[in-house]
């Protein structure tokens, strides 16, 4: 349609999502209609959103003002390049998830437990629409409305199966932390309007126009870091994430981990680079430090999990940590006006957002298929699923390789860019920063390697080896819709992996918008197939060649071997060391696999272990790994609040004489004290 601006199209997209959701209420129990008609429609709408965003990248920002909102503050919307990158992410990734969901919600009693499919459909599409609005919002009110609607709809999605107390608690924790975070964000906006005596203009344009002192700028940044960090899962407000992701149905986990966490990153970028209007170098250090801690923490805990979705959730924490590291690095470079390098780091951030959205959604969806096929979430009861579920298994492999940050898939590109960024940090004009920051690269490297460990554990224990439970033999592969969704995301992961140049050329508009400088020139100079952000002599990466080489060697080698020798295969039992009772139980359990990590990094974990003794009639071994933060932070806070409450409830002691006395004393005090 000519004359229809991208922002209008996106508004129509949001409305379409809402309409699709509402259509779910027409026949709330008609699973077939909802799954086969509405969810694919939602996917289609998502693709439209993605394409529109892709098309609008590089064009000037568009704004719109809606007739709704507060009387003095109607909804302001704005589609600029930063938003467009994230809308692209939202549209493309959610399309895959929606397609998958069309197949996932097919079973009555599965996925839709407790909540009618129609209601689920409403919540799901409301969630999508609110995320889109978060990305488009251009004033604090619209942003907060969209932000909290997003939290709310995802909360309902998380508690879809609300019959389990654990799921309810997870939902509660999630919404509570989201709310606390939202409060911090609101405060941050307030500070950015100038606080006391400020303009009080809550449009983003007003915030941009506001000149803040360094102190208040820092306050705004730290509040935003806390608020968005609470949504993204940064330490120490990460605790909801490993609870909520496993509790939610898999498409929802995928959407939350893949897309929703990125909206928090979007918000942080929006505030730090666009709204607050200044950058101090130590902000970067704070973000970097928190990011490193988060990444380390996330990956450590990911390796020791025994629940597949919890493992992925902790892995998300790790990835968000890496993204925060990237943001920190960008801030540091930006503060010293080293814009080319800041652009490098920021590209790494944006790229990792895209990459993580793709592969983590893919992995969560794979766990969904596994869950469907086996009704099992515990790693200790899975195994050998590559046999019955080859589609899921091979696509999961793509996700795992990307998740481990290995070439030639998507996760590697961003880690590579990030490390390249670190290589330049010794050039920082600050005496100790230029020494300390490169060391952070060592931690990033450690995190990446540990992520590999976690991913191998995840994949090996679920899909490889022997089946640990006999019931797994009946597992079936994913249905056509689910496959389509998985293939979509798998393809995305591959594309992001092998075409970094092309993609960076597109998303560079956002970098240029935020920093005034981008990588596009360099990338365009060296050709679309090559990624050389500075110059090919300095560093280069050609994933397409890389992949082609390995595939060619693989095929050529196979052809040659068959040609020169033969292709004969014989089957026999596995070698049993002469011990005939080797069953599936001889394999490593999930706990066993991560035992070295637990042993090496023991102080990081809070463990409760039970060892069998000789006298046990039914000997067993168990280990429970808990988060230190519960005991260091959350329980003390909860206890303090409870203590205050107990203290205060004494005021309501039931005696009317005492109540009268309150009134009496208040009156007398006011009479004596209150003077104008």
């Amino acid at each position, binding site marked *: 349609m000519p004359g229809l601006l991208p922002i209008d199209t996106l508004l129509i997209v949001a409305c379409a999502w809402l309409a699709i959701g509402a259509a779910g209420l027409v026949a709330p129990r008609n699973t077939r209609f909802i799954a086969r008609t509405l969810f694919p429609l939602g996917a289609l709408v998502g693709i439209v959103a993605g394409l529109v965003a892709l098309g609008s990248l590089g064009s000037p920002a568009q704004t719109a003002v809606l007739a709704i909102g507060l009387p003095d503050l109607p909804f302001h919307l704005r589609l600029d390049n930063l938003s467009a990158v994230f809308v692209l992410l939202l549209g493309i990734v959610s399309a895959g998830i929606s397609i998958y969901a069309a197949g996932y919600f097919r079973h009555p009693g599965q996925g839709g437990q407790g909540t009618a499919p129609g209601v689920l459909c409403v919540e799901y599409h409301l969630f999508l629409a609110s995320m889109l609005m978060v990305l488009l919002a251009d004033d604090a009110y619209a942003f907060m409305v969209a932000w909290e609607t997003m939290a709310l709809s995802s909360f309902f999605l998380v508690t879809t199966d609300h019959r389990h107390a654990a799921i309810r608690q997870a939902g509660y924790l999630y919404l509570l932390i989201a709310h606390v975070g939202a409060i911090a964000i609101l405060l941050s906006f307030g500070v950015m309007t100038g606080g006391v005596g400020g303009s009080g203009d809550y449009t983003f344009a007003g915030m941009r126009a506001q000149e803040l002192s360094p102190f208040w700028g820092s306050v705004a940044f730290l509040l935003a870091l806390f608020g968005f960090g609470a949504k993204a899962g940064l330490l120490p407000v990460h605790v909801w994430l490993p609870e909520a992701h496993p509790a939610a149905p898999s498409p929802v986990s995928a959407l939350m981990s893949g897309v929703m966490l990125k909206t928090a990153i979007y918000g942080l970028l929006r505030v730090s680079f666009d709204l607050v209007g200044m950058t101090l170098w130590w902000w970067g250090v704070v973000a970097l430090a928190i990011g490193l801690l988060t990444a380390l923490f996330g990956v450590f805990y990911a390796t020791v999990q025994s629940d597949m979705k919890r493992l992925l959730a902790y892995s998300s924490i790790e990835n968000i940590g890496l993204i925060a590291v990237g943001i920190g690095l960008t801030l540091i470079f930006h503060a010293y006006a080293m814009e080319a390098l800041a652009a490098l780091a920021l590209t790494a951030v944006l790229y990792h957002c895209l990459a993580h959205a793709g592969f983590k959604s893919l992995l969560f969806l794979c766990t969904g298929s596994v869950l469907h096929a086996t009704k099992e979430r515990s790693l200790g009861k899975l195994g050998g699923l590559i046999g019955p579920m080859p589609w899921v*298994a091979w696509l999961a492999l793509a996700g795992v390789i990307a998740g481990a940050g290995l070439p030639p898939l998507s996760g590697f590109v961003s880690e590579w860019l990030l490390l390249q960024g670190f290589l330049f940090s010794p050039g920082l004009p600050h005496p100790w920063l230029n020494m300390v920051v490169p060391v952070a690269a060592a931690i990033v490297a450690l995190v990446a390697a540990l992520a590999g460990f976690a991913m*191998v554990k995840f994949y090996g224990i679920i899909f490889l080896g*022997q089946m640990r439970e006999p019931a797994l033999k009946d597992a079936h592969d994913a249905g056509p819709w689910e496959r389509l969704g998985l293939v979509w995301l798998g393809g995305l992961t591959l594309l992001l992996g092998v075409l970094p140049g092309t993609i960076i050329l597109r998303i560079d508009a956002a970098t240029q918008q935020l920093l005034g400088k981008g990588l596009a020139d360099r990338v365009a100079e060296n050709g679309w197939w090559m990624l050389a952000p500075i110059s090919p002599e300095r560093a280069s990466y050609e994933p397409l060649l*890389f992949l082609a080489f390995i595939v060619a060697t693989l095929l050529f080698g196979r052809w040659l071997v068959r040609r020169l020798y033969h292709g004969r295969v014989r089957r026999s039992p596995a070698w049993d060391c002469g011990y005939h009772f080797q069953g599936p139980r001889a394999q490593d359990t999930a706990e066993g696999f991560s035992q070295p990590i637990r042993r090496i990094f023991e102080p990081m974990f809070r463990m409760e272990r039970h060892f069998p003794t000789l006298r046990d009639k039914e000997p067993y071994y168990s280990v429970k790994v808990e988060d230190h933060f519960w005991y260091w932070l959350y329980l003390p806070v909860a206890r303090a609040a409870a203590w205050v409450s107990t203290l205060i409830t004494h005021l309501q002691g039931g005696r009317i004489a005492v109540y009268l006395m309150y009134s009496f004393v208040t009156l007398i005090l006011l009479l004596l004290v209150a003077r104008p």
Partner: protein
Amino acid sequence: MTFSLSGFLGQLFAIVLALALAPLLTGWVNQCRAWLQNRGAPPLLQPYYMLHKLFHKDVVLAHGASSLFRAAPFVIFGCMVLACAIIPSLSTDLPFAPAADALALVGVFGLARVFIALAGMDIGTSFGTLGGRREMLVGFLAEPALLIVIFTVALIVQSTSVATIVETLAHRDFIIYPSLAFAGVAFTMVSLAENARVPVDNPATHLELTMIHEAMILEYSGRHLALIEWAASLKLYAYSCLGLALFFPWGIAERDNFLALLAAIPLLLLKLGIGGFLLALIETINAKMRIFRAPEFLGTAFLLAVLGMLVKLLLENRV
């Protein structure tokens, strides 16, 4: 970047040379080790015989083996060939070199490691998973150490492209970089671990409790085993070449310098020969560690690498 014919031929030659030389290097190390340990040495060409024999044999697959198990040897082999293709052994004029810089090289090794660990877990025997777990344990410690070694060098050279590193280092006046010394020690330790050598692993053992590499490939046979063994040789070759490129880059031919290329071949053989002997020496005078000493060993390597980087930043940035 132009794809000159000479460059392409040089690249092809480097790959063929790697494929050919790698088993020889393994044989040489084995022979040296036998000499040092006072036992009769196998023939120098023993690895070739073995590969030939294995390729001839039927593949015996366990019942539970999946398609991943069968694909893994090819992937691993492909990764190692790629690694050898981009590490300058003779010449820095390698058209494939921009495909992956030193960081991506670490990624290639990581990819191979993930596949071999997964393949080890695939059959579902106790050894396979044990091997996979230990391999990943070694990997997550060795990989960052290697990365930091490369980082240190890259900081000196201001590039992560291996070819540029070699060119720059070879052209520089001889300056003693203390950081390079640290990095070199760390690199050696990492190489030992990565190539399943004593003191972290013992390539010659099949004693169950100490195996790492062998535990994973226990179920492989025939051409699959041949490819994996060949890939292991290639890995050793690649690491050796990488070490040479990073720390002894002299003699590697540069672009469009045909004569130097000819001179580079004997020089490479000489350097590899010395390197192989030293490796055998290290393996002889050390004893295999307990598996839980390995993290300490690699932790030390990691620490040395970071220390090297710090030294670079502290001392040499001022220069």
